[in-house]
């Protein structure tokens, strides 16, 4: 007769995790949270005098078996339906609708405000500053002596501007995206079409709008990914971590901008002359307006500054 295998808590936990991991409803974060709960429960039951095996059976039963859990995670239950939530929290359907409308208007306001600032500054840039900038580039290109002395500075300045604007563009996109990247992207698209229908748009505005849509969408995805995977180890260093996280987000944008510009220059030298220089100038001004919008949102927020920053970065 075969000897029964002795119970192992570690193996049981591992098998439970493997089983739950195979169920499509659960994300890794859900499983981590449920495992932490199980471990807490096990520790408490064992401290109360139960053996490992007894504690495991009780803890598992209390947590709920995986099929039932999956069912609840999948549908979130009648308990958490908007109707039940209205009863439970005391808010009516009308109040919920008001909150949704207010949230939509807030999003619209942020996006339209950001676009208006970008458009205004782009217009100024195109009319005066851009022409000055091209004059300098033109003179530098025409005169070998001047090009030799001026070009490195111009080039460094350009790249500095590109870096700064990529940082700011990424930040403001992430700020706007929050939890609804698709909604924000659609709103920006609608604003662009409206603006085009009313006054017409130059290619620079299309580049601006398209970049904002892409940045908004990618920013939302990036932040969601970070929210799921970022697990700090030293809570006391949270403010520094928030800063470093923000830098991390922005450095990704920096890399993307640098790669795109570099590749485009390499693949289409002609395009580089006609498109990339205006794009870089756009980046400068979009970045400046981006920072203005981002910081005004931070400053006018009714949350405390640190809380607001944390909210913006974490969500």
């Amino acid at each position, binding site marked *: 007769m075969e000897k029964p295998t002795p119970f192992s808590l570690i193996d049981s936990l591992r098998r439970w995790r493997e089983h739950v991991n195979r169920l499509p409803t659960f994300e890794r974060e859900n499983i981590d949270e449920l495992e932490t709960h199980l471990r807490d429960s096990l520790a408490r039951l064992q401290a109360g005098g139960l053996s490992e095996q007894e504690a495991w059976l009780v803890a598992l039963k209390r947590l709920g078996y995986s099929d039932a859990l999956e069912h609840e995670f999948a549908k979130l239950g009648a308990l958490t339906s908007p109707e039940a939530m209205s009863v439970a929290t005391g808010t009516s359907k009308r109040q919920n609708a008001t909150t949704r409308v207010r949230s939509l208007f807030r999003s619209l306001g942020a996006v339209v405000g950001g676009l208006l600032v970008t458009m205004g500054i782009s217009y100024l840039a195109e009319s005066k500053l851009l022409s000055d900038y091209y004059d300098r580039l033109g003179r530098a290109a025409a005169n070998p002596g001047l090009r030799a002395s001026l070009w490195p500075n111009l080039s460094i300045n350009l790249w500095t501007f590109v870096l700064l604007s990529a940082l700011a563009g990424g930040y403001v996109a992430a700020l706007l995206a929050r939890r609804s990247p698709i909604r924000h992207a659609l709103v920006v698209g609608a604003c662009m079409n409206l603006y085009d229908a009313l006054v017409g748009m130059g290619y620079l505005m299309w580049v601006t709008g398209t970049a904002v849509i892409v940045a908004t969408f990618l920013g939302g995805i990036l932040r969601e990914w970070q929210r799921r995977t970022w697990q*700090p180890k030293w809570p006391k260093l949270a403010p520094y971590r928030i800063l470093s996280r923000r830098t991390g987000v922005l450095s990704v944008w920096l890399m993307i901008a640098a790669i795109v510009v570099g590749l485009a220059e390499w693949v289409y030298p002609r395009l580089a002359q006609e498109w990339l220089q205006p794009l870089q100038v756009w980046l400068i001004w979009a970045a400046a307006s981006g920072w203005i919008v981002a910081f005004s949102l931070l400053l006018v927020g009714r949350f405390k500054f640190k809380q607001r920053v944390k909210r913006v970065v974490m969500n």
Partner: protein
Amino acid sequence: MLSRELVAASTVPLVLSVLAEGENYGYALIQRVRELSGGEIEWTEGMLYPVLHWMEAQELIESEWREADTGRRRKYYHLCKEGRKALQVGKQQWITVHETLAKLWKNQPRLA
């Protein structure tokens, strides 16, 4: 022991109220409610998490993974502004129900 329906209806206000005391994690939330109710309110523990996630999606609460004193990572939840508002509204309505029933039962004999 409370009925399933009543437990369901009271879950969100209970979570909001416990978090109004300060941030907390799932297991401790359950323990706190069990302790305060004298064991009368029993949640199927795993079912609390979908509720917490839904509340988070509604921006009533926020969460953060942190390392606890034990060295184990835990997901801590805390109230948001919208959560505080929902708590105020919910509190008023539950008090109204409680007071109404108390008045109705004041002169009635105790049920066996």
